[in-house]
């Protein structure tokens, strides 16, 4: 009789004494051994390294969270986009693809897409191209004060977009703002920045740029200073101009970080638009400053046309997905990864 068995026997005797015995002694021992085996089997299947169930065990919590908070809402959204519902009425009316048809054929659709593209252009200029060139200058051409520039340019990133919006509302005030005072000093009349189509997109793009610029700059700067000094010196010895240095050495060597910044500039940038647009223009004038992200919010939580909001959300998701596919299939191939 080994030790385990003795333990089990003792436990069963104890149970017997307390008058709780349901099974006969031998049956009890068999039953306990069965449970023990099952536990061992369970442990071997789920807990030991190399078992096929182990990854499942580890991944389940994350998968559950993702499913509950991302994929399930997404499916709900698809379902919602086939209905008319104002968030209050108990009945949802199924309308099939009507929401999509209405949205594609509406007059504002072209405007929304054009605005979105315009936002992308402005954001890429302010938050990608400009910090790319500036980080190159700061890393490789600037001889001193680099710390000052770095801090000064990064500081706005710490301010919230809502605060930035209010700040710029005042700066761009066409009657009393500092910009209008400057303009009138040189005899120009300040345009109504937030009331003119196109102009409003550029101004909001600049507000987002002011905030995000510094962060992207630091990202790109880290890639720039990662380029070994000898490579730059070798190119200098070959009489490469600053531009050739940038084009043939810096751009390929920093391309992986640059691609990342390029993607987040577009993907995050369009979402940043929500805050200033909601605070300053509510999509106006005449949907002149709305974009694919803000329109979803507006249809859902201002107009209470949840079906249309859902349809817009699906549409923007498809567009994002196409963009990321293009990134993987085309852009990634042109990028130099270190390893």
């Amino acid at each position, binding site marked *: 009789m080994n030790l385990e068995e003795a333990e089990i026997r003792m436990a069963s005797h104890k149970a017997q004494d307390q008058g709780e015995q349901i099974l006969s002694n031998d049956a009890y021992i068999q039953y306990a051994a069965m449970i023990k085996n099952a536990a061992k089997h369970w442990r071997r299947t789920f807990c030991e390294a190399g078992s096929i169930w182990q990854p499942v065990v580890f991944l389940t919590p994350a998968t559950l969270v993702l499913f509950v908070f991302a994929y399930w809402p997404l499916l709900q959204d698809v379902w919602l986009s086939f209905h008319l519902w104002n968030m209050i009425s108990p009945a949802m009316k199924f309308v099939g693809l009507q929401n999509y048809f209405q949205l594609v054929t509406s007059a504002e659709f072209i405007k929304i897409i054009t605005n979105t593209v315009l936002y992308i252009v402005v954001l890429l200029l302010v938050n990608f191209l400009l910090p790319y060139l500036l980080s190159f200058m700061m890393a490789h051409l600037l001889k001193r004060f680099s710390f000052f520039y770095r801090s000064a340019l990064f500081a706005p990133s710490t301010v919230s977009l809502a605060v930035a919006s209010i700040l710029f509302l005042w700066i761009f005030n066409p009657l009393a703002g500092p910009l209008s005072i400057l303009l009138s000093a040189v005899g120009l009349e300040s345009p109504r920045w937030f009331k003119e189509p196109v102009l409003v997109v550029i101004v909001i793009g600049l507000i987002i740029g002011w905030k995000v610029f510094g962060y992207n700059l630091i990202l790109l700067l880290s890639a720039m200073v990662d380029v070994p000094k*000898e490579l730059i*010196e*070798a190119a*200098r010895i*070959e*009489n*490469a101009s600053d531009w050739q240095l940038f084009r043939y050495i810096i751009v390929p*060597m920093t391309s992986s970080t640059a691609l990342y910044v390029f993607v987040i500039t577009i993907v995050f940038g369009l979402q940043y638009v929500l805050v200033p647009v909601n605070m300053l223009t509510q999509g106006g004038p005449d949907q002149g400053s709305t974009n694919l992200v803000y329109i979803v919010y507006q249809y859902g939580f201002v107009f209470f046309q949840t079906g249309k909001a859902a349809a817009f959300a699906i549409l923007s998701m498809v567009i994002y997905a196409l963009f990321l596919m293009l990134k993987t299939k085309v852009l990634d191939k042109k990028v130099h990864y270190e390893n």
Partner: protein
Amino acid sequence: MSGIVFEDVSKYYGEITAVKGLSLSVQEGERLILLGPSGCGKTTTLRMVAGLEKITSGILKMGGHVMNMVEPGARNIAMVFQNYALYPHMTVWENITFGLSIRKVPNGEIKARAEKALEILNLSGYEQRKPHELSGGQKQRVALGRSLVKQAPYFLLDEPLSNLDAQLRLQARTELVKIHELYRPTLMYVTHDQIEAMSVGQRIAIMNQGVLQQLDTPDIIYQYPANTFVASFIGAPPMNLLQGRLCDGKLRIAGCDIKPPAEWQNLLASHSELWVGIRPEHCRLSDNSLLRGRVEFTELLGSQRCVHVRLQGDELVLCVFPAEQSAIEGTVGISFSWEHVNSFDSHTGCNIGRPHVR
């Protein structure tokens, strides 16, 4: 006309002195080695020639023109970096032709030069490889090829072989000399390896703490080191430096009185204390000895054996190469011939000279 001349060149990084009052001239087509321990200013000197470091004071002339303020790209130099500095995103071919295409050399010419360089360096067939697909030796040859195609009159190398293993280094050393012989650019070569310096260099400039110690052919540097630093830096094991005191025409080293030959008497007369330098290979174990000491241990160096001897009443350790004897123990006598002796002033460390050289 492609010599390099330093006239009292200094380089300071704030408070730190990297190179101090360097005056040096490199002849056209010569292989000059800058040799010294790390931090001696040899790489800084090379980088000043390349234009990668600004000169604090003094004049640098290349081909007779003052080059202090000339941009690196306008100096017409080719440089090999210690870690090769190959462009990792370019193929071997692109790496080699990059400089030429920047300089707008005609395409046919680029092709011809690059193919020739690849052939010389045994790299044919590797044109489309990226640097990370090459071995250390191949990378080093690509770096060499990149400088070769330029056909620049100045060829600067910053420890080009230090990342190679011992065997490859040996091979690359001879290849390097062969390549130099091909079109004879003015070559400046930085190394901390004295064997490399001796075998590659036609002249060696030895530096220490930013100051040029001696500039001469490897032979003379080895036989007549200018001061105690050069004496102990060159040669492995280094030259024995023994403290000597002169009294009544006799040289007292480690408790032994030695009578210098007549021609040395005048030379040594003005120095009461001095360092006597004798190379280990010039010391012999013999009964008819000048010095006596106790054997500490014996070291096998392959072709030779090195015996460490502690001299009487002195902490100095002497090193000699015995002829064929195997076990050497106990007290031994050491002799040397005066023709191989160098003597250094005990205060300045400078070589006093030799009777027949002076």
